[in-house]
Each structure stands twice: as C-alpha cells, then as structure tokens.
C-alpha cells in the first residue's frame, strides 16, 4: 500500500493568451492564465486521491497535465520512479498504458457507431496487444465483469445508445481498465449522472482501488462524495493547491479558510435550523490576473497585510497535512 505509483512535483501549466492591440501599444506582456501553479502531490498504490475545487480552479487542467495530454510549463511528472516529463511521444507509449482517463460525459465520450466490444478493444489495438483475438475477447469479458456489467454476453455486442448513463460510465471505466493501468484519472465521472446512480459508479471505483490496487485521481467539485471515497484530498483555488491531507482530517479539522468555506457551503442533506451560511462572499477572480500574495486574500475573512504581499508556502503542519496559509495552525 505504500508504493508510490505517481508523483507530481511543482507542476505548472500556464496558458499564454493573445496580446490585445491596446497591450501591444502600451508595451505590456501578453496575459498569462496560471491554470496550474506549483502543485505537488503523490499517489500511492490502490489509493484514491481527490482533487477538489470550484470551476476554473484548474483541476481539469491538472488532470490533463498529469496524463501529459498537455505539456507542463514547468515541474515534473514521475510514474513508477521514472521521470516522464520530457519523454518523446514514442517513448511515452508504454507509459500511456499505465495511466488512463475517464471523461465527464458518458454520452459524448464514446463513438456511437462502435459496439461495446470495439470500444473496449480499441485501447488494446492501439497498444498492439490484439495479436490473438480470442485473448482480446476474453480480456474484454473479464473487464466487463470487473465493472459489474454481468453477464458480459448481455452487453458486449450492444451499442452505447442502448445503455443508461450509469452503464455507459462503467463502459468508460472498463475501457480505461482493460490495459491494467496503474492509475486512472477520473474527471467528474458522476456529475452528469442522476443522483440515485452516482453511488454505483463511485463505489465501483472504490472497489477497484481496494481489490485491484488501481489508483484513482478523482477530480470533482463535490466535496461530499470525495470525502466518502478518497483517501487523500487536494483542495485547489485559482491554480494553487491550498490544502492537502487525509479525507477525514480535511473534513473534521480543515485549516485553510478556503477549505472551511467550501465545507460549510456543502448543504447538509437534512433540514437544519440555522439555514444557509455564507462564509466567502464574491466569486473566483480571473485566473489571467490573479490577486497578489495569497490568491484568496480579497475574499478571505482573516486576511492581514502580509497576505496581500507574500504568497504563503505550502507547509506540513504534522501528520502529512499540508496547508498554504500564513495563519493556519493546528
């Protein structure tokens, strides 16, 4: 359980926007969107790591950079001890097997003209593992059973439109799983599904992590589900990781003001007397022009002078609980 399968070190991804005419005349530099700024985390074997944040905080970009679908601007990606940041596409191919992706929308992420067999076989063909068709079929059947689409016969020759959203998302997981990857990045895998079937998909991820020792990076805006399936959670705000620790610790003793606000904004599922609490006013600022110092300071209830100038470093406050705030104390 302690073997590290993936490590992101000081990952950065900046998008350079086009200069406006006005900026050109004024001699200003082109605006840069700091989508991911100095994010580090590790994923151990069989662990589910949650990346949580509001829209525009860079969590999806982080997911893509982690898989090298986007080249990082800076920092390094280490898979099973090997730095893959600078590898050429050909040399990447064996590593692609180890890292897979499940998309948000199960309705758009599958070719409607392919049957389930072809959809799940495609990664095997790309990796050149389709020498023996009988083996391919056996592998597909086994994978379908692993994602609890049993009996496999009932699904294998059907088309995506014949399946419900939850079943399609299982197919998406099966497609990622068929290569026996070390870890899977799941980008909002349940946000398009109905509430009553989200649990099925999330519990499937949990089971695969425990039984098959596949690690997951679960990218979501929903802290409540992350809390129940993740081992560790990384909270992001405007491209930066502001806090990371075990799921229990995050929920029961959050240290960063943003995490606290995020937790309090999750509405309790039963009626409460005190109603809705709003801790942070306003909305997430533009990532092309983030505030100076600590990026939360214009909205932060405990901000002091230092917060406007100095960006707080992510520091360990004990028990592997990392937080980036000048005033966070255990």
């Amino acid at each position, binding site marked *: 359980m302690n073997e590290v399968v993936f490590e992101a070190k000081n990952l950065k991804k900046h998008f350079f926007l086009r200069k406006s005419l006005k900026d050109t005349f004024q001699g200003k530099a082109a605006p840069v969107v700091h989508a991911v700024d100095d994010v580090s985390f590790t994923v151990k074997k069989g662990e589910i790591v949650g990346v949580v944040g509001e829209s525009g905080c860079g969590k999806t970009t982080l997911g893509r950079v982690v898989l090298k679908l986007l080249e990082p601007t800076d920092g390094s990606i280490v898979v099973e001890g090997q730095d893959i940041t600078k590898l050429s596409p050909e040399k990447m191919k064996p590593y692609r097997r180890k890292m897979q992706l499940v998309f948000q929308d199960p309705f758009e992420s599958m070719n409607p003209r392919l049957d389930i067999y072809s959809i799940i076989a495609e990664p095997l063909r790309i990796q050149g593992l389709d020498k023996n068709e009988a083996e391919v079929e056996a592998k597909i059947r086994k994978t379908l059973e692993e994602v609890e689409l049993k009996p496999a016969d009932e699904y294998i020759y059907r088309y995506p439109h014949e399946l419900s959203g939850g079943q399609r998302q299982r197919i998406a997981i099966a497609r990622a799983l068929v290569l026996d990857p070390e870890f899977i990045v799941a980008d909002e895998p349940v946000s398009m599904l109905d509430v009553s079937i989200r*649990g099925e998909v999330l519990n499937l991820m949990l089971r695969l992590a425990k039984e098959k020792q596949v690690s997951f990076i679960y990218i979501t805006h929903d802290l409540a589900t992350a809390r129940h399936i993740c081992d560790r959670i990384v909270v992001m705000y405007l491209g930066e990781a502001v806090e990371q620790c075990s799921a229990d610790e995050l929920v029961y003793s959050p240290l960063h003001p943003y995490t606290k606000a995020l937790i309090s904004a999750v*509405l309790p599922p039963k009626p409460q007397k005190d109603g809705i609490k709003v801790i942070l006013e306003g909305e997430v600022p533009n990532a092309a022009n983030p505030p100076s110092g600590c990026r939360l300071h214009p909205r932060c209830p405990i901000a002091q002078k230092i917060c406007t100038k100095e960006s707080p470093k992510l520091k360990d406050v004990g028990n592997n609980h990392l937080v980036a705030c000048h005033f966070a104390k255990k």
Partner: protein
Amino acid sequence: MALLEVKDLKMYYKVRRGDVKAVDGVSFEIEKGEAMGLAGESGCGKSSMATTLLRLLPNNGRILDGSIKFDGKEILDLPEEQFRQDYRWQRMSIIFQGAMNALNPVHRIGKQISEAIITHENVSKNEAKKRAEELLEMVGINSERYRNYPHEFSGGMKQRAVIAMALACNPDLIIADEPTTALDVMVQAQVLEAIQSLRKKMGLSMLLISHDLSVIAQTCDKVAIMYAGRIVEYGPSTKVYNNPLHPYSYGLLSSFPDIMAPRSPIQSIPGSPPNLLEPPSGCRFSPRCPLADSKCFTDEPELMAIDGKNHLVACHKAGALGKVGEQS
C-alpha cells in the same frame, strides 16, 4: 385557502410513438408565504410541472385533465390572453434553469428587466428603469450595472439578474426551476441565501424544483418527491427527510452523502428511471423497488396519509421501510 391548488393534473407530450406521460395525476397545494420543493431525477416530469403551471408548453404538450386554482380561482380554462395579462409574471413568475441561456446576450441587463415591467404594467420608461435598478439592488447587484451586458456578469450575478427579472412585477408565487444547478457550491449558497431573504421580505410563496434534495432541505417548508410523472411522497420537510416512507424517497435521500458523516459507501438505487412513453404497470417504482411483491406490479398505489394527516405516501408497503434500512 391555499394560494395554489393543483388537482389531478395530467399533461402529456404527443410524440410519434404515443404519449409521454410527463405529469400524470399530480396534486399539491402551496399556502401563502410557503415554500414547497419538488424533487426528482431527470425525466420525472418536474420541469414539465413548471411549464404547465405557467402555460409555457411546447406545441406538442397538452393538458388533459385536472385543475389549477390560483387564489381560489380556476385558471386552467382562462383564455390565453387573459392568463398572460393577469397571471403570468403578475401573479406567478419563473426563475429559469440556466441563467446563462435565459438572458438575451445582445441586450443590456437592466433593459431586459424593465422590458418585463413595461410589458405587464402601464408605466413609463423612466419609472420602469427606476424599478429595475431597485430590483438589481435588492438581489445584491449594484444598480450602476444596469447598463451592463450579460457577458460582463459572472455566473452568480446572471442568476441574480434572472431572479430580479422574476420579481419584476411583484408576483405572489415564484417557480424556481433548478435555480442553482449550474453554479458552484459557494455561489449556490450565496444565491440560495438571496432567494431566502427576498422571500421573507416580500412574503413570497415558492415552488422550488430541484434534483438536489439538500437544496430543498435548506429552503423549503414542505416537499413532494416525484417519480415517473407522479408524486410518490408529499409532506412537511422535517417529516419526509427524517422519516421517509416511500422506498424511492428513502433511496434518493440516502444517495446524498453527508459530508460530516463517517466514511461509508455511497448508497444508490439499482436500475434507472422508466421510459414515460410506457410507464411500468402498477407502482411505477416496482421494477427498482427492493420491497415490491406481486401486488405492486399490478395495482397502482394511491397517495394516502400515513404518518399524521399531512404526510402522504403512495406505496403499498409504506409501513415496511425499516426492513430496507436493515438490508442495506
């Protein structure tokens, strides 16, 4: 007397393959100043309920049966023109689902709000503008932004502008159709808080339509759970949430994890909602229900009072729910 009284309402969409029974015999009441939540999964007919109430149905949507009484007066048989003049927006208005799409991108925000006022009331342009500015302030937007275009607003502000628009003619009832679904959690809390305080200030009644039971839990006095075009459970929020009697309500409620609860697997309901072209016979939830027996597959249960007068459930097995809890 209730402000809104809906009885046995049926609204079907005619499609080539038959009728989609989106609203199939729905009854509920909303008192003055009360907030009711209508909860259910996608495709259960909850948004159709909203468009039926305001007569905003597409051409193939037909109201077959039932009655809608507003303030004691039957409004279902009113001529369209009279309904438009006296009821839509004047007495009841709607906050649409995606604020991003409810605003016209090429018109200024303030203009769009005052347009609603001018259309429905006999006021001058200046007066309408003044009212629109007040409305913007009321929902927490600086009135100087009257001349902004929608793209200059953030998501939360657009949703607030849509709320201001719904309040333009001082309605008695607002229908909020998934008012916060497209918003981030933090902004969702802000918008819900704005809706709540406006409701208190203006004594508004509200019908809140949402798939998110936690949103309804924090804002509504009573709740109706809808499944496949019918209400399966109906009662005060405290009763329905703390003591759900229908297996579907129970399942749906336990699908929402509590962030503060100890780590545990997230519950789900096996199967998926039925096709409303041919809903299952008997109880519509029976194919997914862990408690269903032969009676459930043939007889459709009626909505009946079980636990006290105001808590209604449509289930043959309403008393047996404890067993589901033990199984899961």
